[in-house]
């Protein structure tokens, strides 16, 4: 079953030097004068149920933009995106946390944005706190936390939602080896339940460890889409290509 269907999606951003540029452009008829930065150009892909897809590529190749489009945060200039199922996306950790509120307040807030009802949140709080392993700190303001604690709390809140599709941007890079392993175990658990995971990464090792399919983006379009086993070859090809240019 096809959970995400992306057809001919393009996305570009307008580049302005400053506000005057922007105002001038708004009232001028000559729209071609502004510079467009094409992030994605005619990208099409399908993701089926139960697939674990890695999205790879150099900096600025459009990974995060693609994930944002898939999550429904930002919208394409042209093309269609169809989604079937509940999506949870973890694009950045802890950015929704208010430093002056306690961990508990922040969990409630974060979870309610992700669409959990009051009752669901109540039943999940214990699980979230124990997975984050922050103990009594949960009753204190977030600003008293260490960076690692904040990250752990954000992560365990984010994955406590029971989505059909999990979209993750490069967020696993933080955290110590122990917590990283715990997260990966949780992902594997997800996978075994037949859920779909899409995640962007720079770590080939991690990708090969737990994805079947890999997509490499380059210059606003798909450079490679296929079995994860071939990813090494294509990645090298991409790097040589860029070095020559």
């Amino acid at each position, binding site marked *: 079953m096809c959970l995400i269907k992306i057809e001919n999606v393009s996305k570009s951003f307008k580049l302005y030097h400053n*506000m005057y540029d*922007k105002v001038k452009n708004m009232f001028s008829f000559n729209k071609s004068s502004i510079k467009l930065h094409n992030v994605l150009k005619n990208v099409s892909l399908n993701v089926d149920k139960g697939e674990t897809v890695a999205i790879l590529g150099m900096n600025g190749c459009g990974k995060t933009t693609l994930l944002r489009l898939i999550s429904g*945060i*930002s919208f394409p200039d042209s093309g269609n995106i169809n989604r079937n199922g509940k999506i949870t*996306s973890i694009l950045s950790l802890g950015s929704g946390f208010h430093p*002056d*509120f306690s961990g508990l307040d922040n969990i409630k807030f974060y979870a*309610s944005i*992700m669409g959990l009802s009051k009752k669901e949140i109540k039943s999940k709080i214990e699980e979230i706190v124990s997975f984050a392993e922050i103990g009594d700190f949960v009753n204190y303001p977030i600003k008293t936390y260490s960076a690692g604690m904040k990250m752990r709390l954000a992560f365990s809140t984010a994955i406590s939602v029971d989505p059909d599709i999990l979209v993750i941007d490069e967020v696993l890079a933080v955290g110590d080896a122990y917590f990283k392993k715990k997260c990966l175990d949780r992902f594997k658990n997800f996978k075994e339940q037949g859920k779909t995971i899409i995640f962007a990464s720079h770590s080939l090792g991690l990708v090969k460890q737990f994805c079947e399919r890999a997509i490499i983006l380059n210059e606003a379009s798909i450079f490679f889409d296929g079995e994860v086993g071939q990813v090494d070859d294509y990645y090298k090809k991409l790097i040589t290509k860029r070095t020559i240019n």
Partner: protein
Amino acid sequence: MIKNLINNKDLILILVKRDFEGRYKNSVLYFVWPFLHPFLLTLTLWFVFTCGFKNGNSVNGIPFILWLITGLIPWYFFSESISKGVISIKEYAYIIKNMPFPIEILPVIKTLSSLITHSFFLLVLFLILLFYHLNNFIFFIPNLIYFIFCSMILSTSINYFTSSIFVIFKDTAEILKILVNFTFWLTPIIWNGNLLTGKLKMLLYLNPVYYIINGYRDTLLYSKPFWNDLKGISSFWIITLILIYVSSKIFNKLKSGFADML
């Protein structure tokens, strides 16, 4: 849009609570600050009018201080809603950029959190009215609720407009500050609108803020039901409906781009 608001009522409640608490979370006397400034301003204005201008006479048989407070309290409510409302989308940039989020609930939040302060002020006002033996207002509470509703609709629709424009032009906040200031002096809040004559008096009908301020006074001090003022009702709602239409058009047009522009 309204359906979306109802669907997200849990989230709205959490956001309102967070907004109200978050404002002064770091100050020790956080429960004092939302009330102290309006309180001191009221005292100052009363002093200026009674001792400075020697103009603190009773208005239609109502003591001047009472007349002043009943006009100022709805003004504080309205001005707080819209001055804070302008940042309501920008404030949640970190969420809009990272999670799918029902952005259309945001402009409502500031109006609702201002309502908390407002209800406290109303309570104080009720006590003062009782102290002056003006007990009639008790029968006019539904009438008052109508004007609270008017004020909320007006400020929320302004918030939809200003907060969406503010995402693109930061100048909006400065312009709004000036406009709020001008509105305060040009609307008969601390001076009596009945002193105007002829064409100037007709102009008051074009001012939806005056309709609300005057409504509070008529309700609480003079026990007039709102349906007596047909001219006021029609002009207020025509202006407000136009405003709602324009604001929602602009908001919906810009909505899909907020995550990219913030």
